[in-house]
């Protein structure tokens, strides 16, 4: 085996204080980046959760709709227009809006996002129902909420009662894992109840979920749908997801802040690693001059420095990955859990290596200018 790795690793482990400083720098940086990117991924997933769980071929949305949560009402004629297009089998109305939830035992009201769709229809129904069923939303005043919001909504168990915009509500179904990316819980209701809670006139809706026949030409159907609509757009689920993500992640600045923090983490980590590698190289300058004197090429010395950077990266990343896994487990039930995917893990490892390689540039600049005559200095 080449002595490059031996020399690099022993140089690193010889000075444990400096190695610890290097590794802490990398760990700090990678954990910070992971948390930011993990939250970004989580955020990205959560903002589209309603769209993801809707059984839609197309969405008819009000013109210039920016996200699922923020939309105006459609005119109401769109449903019949959609159903008149060949290939369309259903146009399911969905009503969405913010309302005030008053806890049963008094106290302050809390805002909720009411989501209403016809019960029993494929469209947008609560999922992961643990108690009761989605069909129970057809019961008088019936709503579904997530178990994780019981305390926030003042509900102790299923059949608990409350008020939404001063109208009765009764929890008839309990879901698990339907969490909002904000502090505003989702409340599912039947279409009619949702309209009542939100004051939406009959036959009006925020969206229509369009289903088409299996043998229909989606592009043709979409074109015909769009041609007949004014002040409304036809979007695929992917387009609606993208629009919602762009709004929440970038138009609001939330995603930019997360990415900004991640970039800051990379910069801080790079600087820490660069500083320690640079000072390590300065301390070993005579050894590198000796290498040069005995005839080593610049490339050989660069390999030693890069090997040091790579070893630092592997050690730092291994520790950071362990901490990251612990954080993922700890935040699994949080409002915004940290998400780690295999792609993110591989990407972070690559990022760590690149970060350490960039950090080695200052050290490399020192050794490429080294004068072998230095070996004669006492």
């Amino acid at each position, binding site marked *: 085996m080449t*002595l490059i790795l031996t020399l690099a690793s022993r140089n690193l482990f010889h000075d444990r204080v400096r190695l610890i400083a290097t590794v802490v720098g990398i760990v700090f940086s990678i954990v910070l980046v992971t948390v930011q990117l993990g939250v970004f991924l989580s955020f990205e997933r959560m903002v589209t959760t309603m769209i993801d769980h809707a059984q839609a071929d197309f969405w008819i949305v009000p013109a210039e709709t920016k996200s699922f949560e923020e939309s105006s009402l459609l005119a109401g004629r769109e449903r019949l227009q959609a159903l008149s297009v060949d290939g369309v089998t259903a146009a399911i109305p969905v009503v969405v809006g913010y309302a005030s939830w008053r806890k049963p035992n008094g106290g302050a009201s809390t805002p909720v996002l009411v989501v209403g769709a016809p019960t029993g229809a494929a469209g947008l129904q609560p999922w992961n129902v643990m108690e009761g069923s989605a069909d129970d939303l057809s019961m008088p005043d019936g709503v579904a909420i997530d178990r994780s919001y019981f305390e926030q909504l003042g509900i102790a168990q299923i059949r608990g009662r409350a008020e939404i915009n001063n109208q009765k509500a009764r929890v008839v179904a309990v879901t698990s894992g339907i969490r909002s990316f904000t502090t505003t819980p989702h409340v599912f209701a039947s279409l009619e109840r949702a309209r009542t809670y939100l004051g939406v006139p009959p036959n009006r809706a925020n969206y229509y979920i369009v289903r088409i026949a299996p043998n229909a030409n989606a592009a043709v159907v979409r074109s015909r749908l769009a041609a007949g609509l004014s002040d409304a757009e036809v979007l695929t689920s992917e387009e609606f997801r993208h629009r919602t993500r762009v709004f929440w992640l970038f138009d609001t600045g939330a995603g930019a802040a997360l990415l900004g923090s991640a970039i800051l983490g990379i910069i801080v980590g790079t600087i820490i690693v660069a500083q320690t590698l640079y000072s390590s190289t300065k301390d070993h300058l005579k050894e590198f001059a*000796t290498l040069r*004197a*005995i*005839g080593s090429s*610049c490339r050989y010395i660069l390999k030693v420095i890069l090997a040091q950077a790579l070893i630092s990266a592997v050690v730092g990343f291994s520790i950071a990955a362990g901490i990251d896994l612990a954080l993922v487990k700890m935040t699994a039930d949080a409002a915004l859990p940290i998400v780690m995917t295999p792609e993110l893990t591989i990407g972070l490892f690559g990022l760590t290596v690149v970060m350490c390689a960039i950090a080695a540039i200052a050290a490399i600049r020192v050794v490429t200018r080294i004068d*072998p005559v230095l*070996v*004669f200095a*006492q």
Partner: protein
Amino acid sequence: MTQTMIEASAIAMVLGEGAARVDALKDINLSLAGGELTLLMGPSGSGKTTLLSVLGCMLSPTGGSVQIRGRSTTGLNAEQLAQLRRDNVGFVFQSYHLFPTLTAAENVRLALDVRGERSPLARVKAEKALATVGLSHKAKAFPRALSGGEQQRVAVARAIVGDASVILADEPTAALDSENGQAVMTVLADIAKDPARAMFIVTHDPRIMPFADRILRIEDGRIVSDQRRGGANISAVRALKYAS
């Protein structure tokens, strides 16, 4: 017939400019032959180390030319000079310059590693070089566990392991006591008997003169005397005996 390993012609080395200009070497003509141990002696600041650096392809002279085994160093860039060093030159330094994190054997093997020799044969060569300097039993020792003399012998093993045609040593005994200095010089003198190698040692130490086949004296950047064994002066210093 011995082979010329290094040929230096009209070497000049000017350092600094203007008022700070120093003519470190002036019109040096020198050839080093295989199988010969040459000492370069002279007072501090006389140009010994500068000449060693020029002969070792670490510094390019401002005038004249150097040829290592027939290959001129003129016009070579830093990488080409490094290649010339790793292929032809072995160094022994006053401060040993061993790598503290590598064992004795690894320090020796490093000289092969930089040449891309990483086969099991490289280990064998390193063991053989250590055996030559009498340190086979210290192969796994780190420099901190070795005496100064032993460290210098490891450095000698590193210098010879690649079959360098020229061994250049800078004050190899300066940091050693008499006993260790003698041991190191004995090793170097044995190695110098190899007709495929020229040995060039810069020193202040008169105790090592008896080991020399040739003694050069340098003053103010000029070679002022060049005496070979058998000459009157050499005979005189031989009588001094090393450790006395």
